[in-house]
């Protein structure tokens, strides 16, 4: 495009205002300029490197609204090439971050291949968490088998963040890991995904856990219960809430009461009733409020 040459001249200008004007119109130039922008983004002059990065960002946004944008495939292709081993790491990082905004599902295997590059593993996972569709989930599940143990919790977190039901079996299996960090990460992901597995999972034994791992595990089980309640599986949810009603932790009791009130069944009401006279004022007030809300819902 005739404008591309002028754009490439302006984006390298010594004048910051000229560079700015150029990066603002980067959405109007051809994706063929991407390699040149990549070189400039990795160069020594911080102002010129910034302008190149911003131009790549503008190009990304210009095709971001509609997946069917005419130039979108070409911009994605350009960013994938830029994210490859030929670029310096900071440029690869920027390209991967831009891909997280617009890369389609079928780019997942290409992106996932870089997860074995230690400096990029985090960014790649970030990208796979954001990309739509099932392919990124499949890539995360495949990557889990090959990454080092210390990175497995990160992959599990990504599956949890995506609410990836395809990850439930992996979570159930990983809960049994002798590596406590992996086991707790698996419970956390399981809680966030919130899908009932085929067989009851065996949660890690809290003996030997750090205090924060214990807190995390219980929180995850409450999240799972809340998800079950939302799905209409009241019995599954109530079983979890019931298990913490006698906990010495007041806030776990409160969470159970609140969850039971939302379940709204006669069994739930019967479990809340004794808490109306709890010795702990936070539990007592929470139970009173829960009771009122149940009565209002019933009315």
């Amino acid at each position: 495009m005739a404008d591309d040459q002028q754009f490439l001249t302006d984006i390298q200008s010594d004048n910051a205002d000229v560079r700015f004007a150029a990066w603002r119109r980067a959405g109007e130039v051809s994706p063929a300029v991407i390699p040149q922008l990549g070189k400039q983004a990795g160069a020594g002059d911080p102002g010129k490197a910034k302008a190149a990065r911003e131009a790549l960002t503008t190009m990304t946004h210009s095709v971001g609204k509609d997946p069917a944008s005419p130039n979108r495939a070409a911009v994605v292709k350009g960013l994938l090439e830029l994210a490859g081993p030929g670029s310096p790491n900071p440029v690869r990082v920027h390209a991967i971050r831009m891909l997280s905004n617009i890369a389609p599902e079928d780019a997942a295997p290409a992106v996932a291949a870089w997860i074995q590059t230690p400096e990029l593993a985090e960014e790649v996972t970030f990208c796979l968490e954001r990309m739509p569709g099932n392919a990124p989930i499949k890539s995360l599940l495949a990557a889990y088998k090959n990454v080092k143990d210390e990175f497995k919790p990160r992959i599990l977190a990504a599956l949890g963040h995506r609410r990836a039901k395809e990850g439930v079996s992996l979570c159930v299996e990983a809960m049994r890991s002798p590596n406590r960090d992996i086991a707790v990460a698996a419970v956390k992901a399981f809680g966030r995904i919130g899908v009932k597995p085929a067989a009851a999972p065996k949660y890690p034994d809290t003996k030997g856990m750090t205090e924060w791992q214990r807190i995390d595990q219980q929180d995850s089980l409450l999240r799972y219960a809340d998800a079950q309640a939302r799905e209409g599986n009241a019995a599954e949810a109530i079983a979890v809430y019931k298990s913490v009603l006698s906990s010495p932790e007041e806030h776990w009791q409160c969470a159970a009461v609140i969850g039971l009130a939302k379940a709204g069944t006669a069994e739930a009401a019967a479990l809340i009733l004794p808490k109306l006279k709890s010795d702990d004022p936070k539990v007592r007030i929470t139970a009173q409020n829960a009771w009122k809300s149940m009565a209002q819902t019933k009315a």
Partner: protein
Amino acid sequence: MKRRELIKATAGTGAALMFDIVPARALGLQGQPAPSDILNLGHIGIGGRGANHLRPDADVGRMVKAPLGQGGGGVRIMRPARSMALCDVDAKRLDTAATKVGGKPRTYRDFRRLLEDKDVDAVIIASPDHWHALQTIMACQAGKDVYVEKPAGNTIEECRAMVTAADRYGRVVQVGAQGRSQVAAWQAANYIKAGQIGAVRKITCWHYASPIGDWKTPDSAPPEELDYDTWVGPAPWIPYNARHTHGSFRWLIDFGGGQIRDRGAHIMSIASWIMDVDTTGPVSIDAKGEPPHDGMYDSGVTMEVAYEFKNPDFSMVWAQPGEIPPEFPKATYGATYWGDNGHISITYGDGNSTATNQEAVEFSKQCDCGKVFRSPGHNENWEDCIRTREKPIMHMEAGHRVASLCILGNVGFQLQRKLEWDPVNERFINDEEANRLLSRPGRGPWHL
């Protein structure tokens, strides 16, 4: 002897009881629950803003005047509380804070250890903005009530997750947009809600432009006293630079989000309160403006964000720099409310220099017919609600919706296109990339 009598009897005497870190619950009567008469506070993030929340040990049990800027009116005395535990990733700041508090506060470098401390009743979170959401959620997980500085969070997803966590555990969470607790804001709200300017059709916010930044300070190794990896925390990694860490993180969108997410959280908090939109949001966002043309910062220098609301129908504009109303020529930020029958302004919103038009002041002396809740002060309101378990004036859902306005403005600014928003389902309409920006995956072990 009842607990209150015990405290009164020993107040000011330097009795050991007042200076030992005695858990609140241990002072209760045997066999009875012990609502804490002295709130044991934990502080996470004790830099510029965080230090203002500290309660010196020497003040415990004494009548202490409220700090300026937290709203309320008249002679205000703080509820009894002590700064029992402190946490900061900067060892120097931690030492300074411990010295300021006096006594022997517990100090932590890892905020999870502070949250595990069962003697801490509630926490005040004043870490940088990119940490607000996760620390609030984790504090709720640990059973603490929370005062979290504004803005609530950095993405729509994490702000909603804060609401979910607060609701799940029934925790009392106050977001530190203290504008609603300012006397002038109450006077203006009362005046407006009593119908004195008619239906409000438009709100125009003004704020001076943001800094531009430069390249004078190169990236470097972080100072020894700073655990920089934890400082970055869940945000995308950037190398250390003294010009975008303490305080100046504000000018990076990934961290502080610029003026709109900083002061916008104050100004638009008052607007949301007055317009009763604490549980909803705009239907469109149209942002224009320019970031710095050079230098390391990327948040808007100049901005104009136009929000359209439905039910109620009104528009709001956030403008940097915007137009200063002639009645308040020296006010560097604030908002003007334009009604069918007149207009008034509320300046600032984050401090006791908050002011409004004299007609609203005079009206409110005669009549509180707007039926607007009058906060005793932002901290006091929170502490009262800790005891009653009611929602405070800037509760988590309100904090989420206000932060969302700021976040939506920045998303529109970054994408440079008008956005349509579904405030019920909290998603953009017909914008795939914008919807990807609703969330941001966390780094390392830090995840929602």
